[in-house]
């Protein structure tokens, strides 16, 4: 078998975009600085040169246009991949994201569909402050009609994005901007796809199920590594998509471990973990040996100081401590 090349998370996204644009002439992109500059994070570098200004469209600072035009284009025969520079900017285009993208098909009797992807650089980066650091993926779960992907590895970033572009539904694609440089094996096969609604079991373990997303996946694995030395084995599950959510894999794991901890970078109150924990107790109450716990960001805004910022979101050490305490209950 040929060796799978190692690639960065940002580069894997770039590869997915290039491959899908080569495969299908109706796929195109728009967003601020996605063209000549190649994106503020460099994710779309080279695509303007390959596909031209007609398919890689630089916009101005107009988020309602970026998202709304993508919705209008999606319902008329093309497949837009729109980028907002920061996931936080969804709030500027709230009507376009949560009403038009999510509901246009439904409120028009399923006569139209909206095959589009909205790329959303998410999470803390190191000092970009309260309005550029949030993890808002739970909003996608709360508005029926939107799919939500949240890759934690370069291979998933590529495979999930390719699936998103081929999905006939609108997808919110949360790419962690703090993970853009994370490296990992990424298959080169242009038909490499990661299906939606299939969680990845990142590590097997018998004592506690940790459901983690995004940046929390490597942190949970780091905690699992340390606890393994104490004889505590964590099973780490990465849902990869929150809509659809693979509860089957999560519940099957809890049937084995009897305990669950949900970890995310989003604010703890009413974060995705609230929904996941509620579904766990509905589906697996009688196999649980302990309450389902949640770890998330503190209920504050994200402070600009990079040191303080890290204290707001769960660390590997905090996951380790919570896991140790939960296993001992």
């Amino acid at each position, binding site marked *: 078998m040929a060796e799978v090349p190692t690639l960065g998370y940002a580069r894997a996204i770039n590869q997915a975009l290039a491959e899908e644009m080569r495969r299908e002439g*109706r796929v*195109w992109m728009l967003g601020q600085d996605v063209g000549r500059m190649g994106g503020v994070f460099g994710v779309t570098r080279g695509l303007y040169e390959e596909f031209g200004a*007609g*398919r890689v*469209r630089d*916009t*101005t600072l*107009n*988020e*309602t*246009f970026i*998202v*709304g*035009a*993508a*919705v*209008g*284009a*999606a*319902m*008329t*025969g*093309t497949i*837009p991949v729109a980028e907002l520079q920061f996931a936080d900017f969804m709030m500027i285009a709230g*009507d*376009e994201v949560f*009403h*038009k993208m999510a*509901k*246009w*098909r*439904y*409120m*028009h*009797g*399923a*006569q*139209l*569909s*909206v*095959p589009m992807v909205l790329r959303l650089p998410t999470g803390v980066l190191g000092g970009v402050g309260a309005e550029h650091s949030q993890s808002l993926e739970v909003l996608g779960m709360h508005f*029926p*009609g939107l799919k939500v992907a949240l890759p934690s590895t370069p291979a998933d970033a590529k495979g999930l994005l390719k699936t998103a572009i081929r999905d*006939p*539904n609108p997808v919110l694609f949360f790419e962690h901007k703090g993970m853009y440089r994370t490296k990992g094996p990424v298959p080169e096969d242009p038909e490499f796809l990661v299906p939606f609604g299939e969680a990845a079991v990142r590590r097997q373990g018998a004592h506690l199920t940790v459901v983690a997303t995004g940046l929390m996946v490597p942190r949970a694995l780091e905690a699992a590594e340390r606890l393994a030395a104490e004889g505590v084995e964590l099973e780490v599950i990465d849902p990869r998509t929150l809509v659809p959510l693979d509860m089957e894999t999560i519940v099957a794991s809890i049937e084995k471990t009897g305990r669950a901890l949900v970890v995310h970078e989003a604010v703890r109150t009413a974060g995705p973990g609230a929904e996941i924990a509620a579904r766990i107790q509905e589906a697996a109450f009688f196999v649980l040996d302990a309450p389902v716990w949640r770890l998330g960001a503190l209920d504050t805004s994200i402070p600009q100081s990079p040191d303080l910022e890290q204290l707001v979101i769960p660390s590997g050490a905090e996951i380790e401590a919570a896991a140790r305490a939960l296993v001992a209950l």
Partner: protein
Amino acid sequence: MNELDLYREVTRIRALELLLHRYIEEHGFGGFWHPGLGQEGLQAGAVSALREDDYLFYAHRGLGYALAKGMSPVTLLADLFGKAGGSVGGKGGGTVHFVDPERGVLGQGGTVGSSFVLGAGAGISAQMLGEDRVVAIFFGDGAAARGTFHEAALTASVWKLPLVWICENNGWAISVPISEQSPTEDIADRAAAYGVPGVVVDGQDTLAVRAATEEAVARARAGEGPTLIEAKTLRVRGHFEGDKQGYREDLVDGLEVPRDPLALLREGGAAPAAEADRLDAEARDEAEAVLAEVLAMPGPEPDVITEGVWA
């Protein structure tokens, strides 16, 4: 479409307007009906300048836009009354939604002014796919205030998207008169900021609206970009049927349409009196029959509620 056919479209829309007014007065209505009485000529005139495959984003004032685009009045009324037989099967929101992809009727949002950005997107598709389709986007003077207009107009003008913006300026954004909404008398003046033509036209003059729209459509189809047409019209009724309009001093609470587009078409010779009378009568008969048919239709079954969320 010849002038007599255009008269026919206007009087068909008028007949539905008057019948709905009467029905709602007698029976009430489980939603909001935003009457378009008096604006029928504008709607039919502008839409008559479009090709069947051109895209239409209509506004919330009346059924005229979609009727003129060729949708069946039965479908439109069925949507208005939330019947299973409507184009959206009882799932529209806010004011009435209807859709007809075959005729380019792409729907509307419940949030006023949201079509600017969506319409621009439809224009991008047409441009990218090498189609010479044009996108007509209707809106009121109130919606013209939305930031979405600015965001869309700016980029659409730079990209020369094939758009025609048709502002139905009826002088009132619900209760706020145009003098208190706009620093300039003409909304069309705003076109200058985007480097596109801004055209003021008499919205009661069906043929003038059609001529202005034809010019804008030709420009858009030729790849020269958007045009902003401002059709000056008036709001005969309240913002919605049932609006008491206590804020209005110019109020004539009736059904009489000042500078009636039908009368102007007759006077201009578009429709000889005998022909026009016949078309008016046909339109009234059609409206009565359509309403009776729609009222007898079943409502949607509960099992459709969860259908159509996903493609």
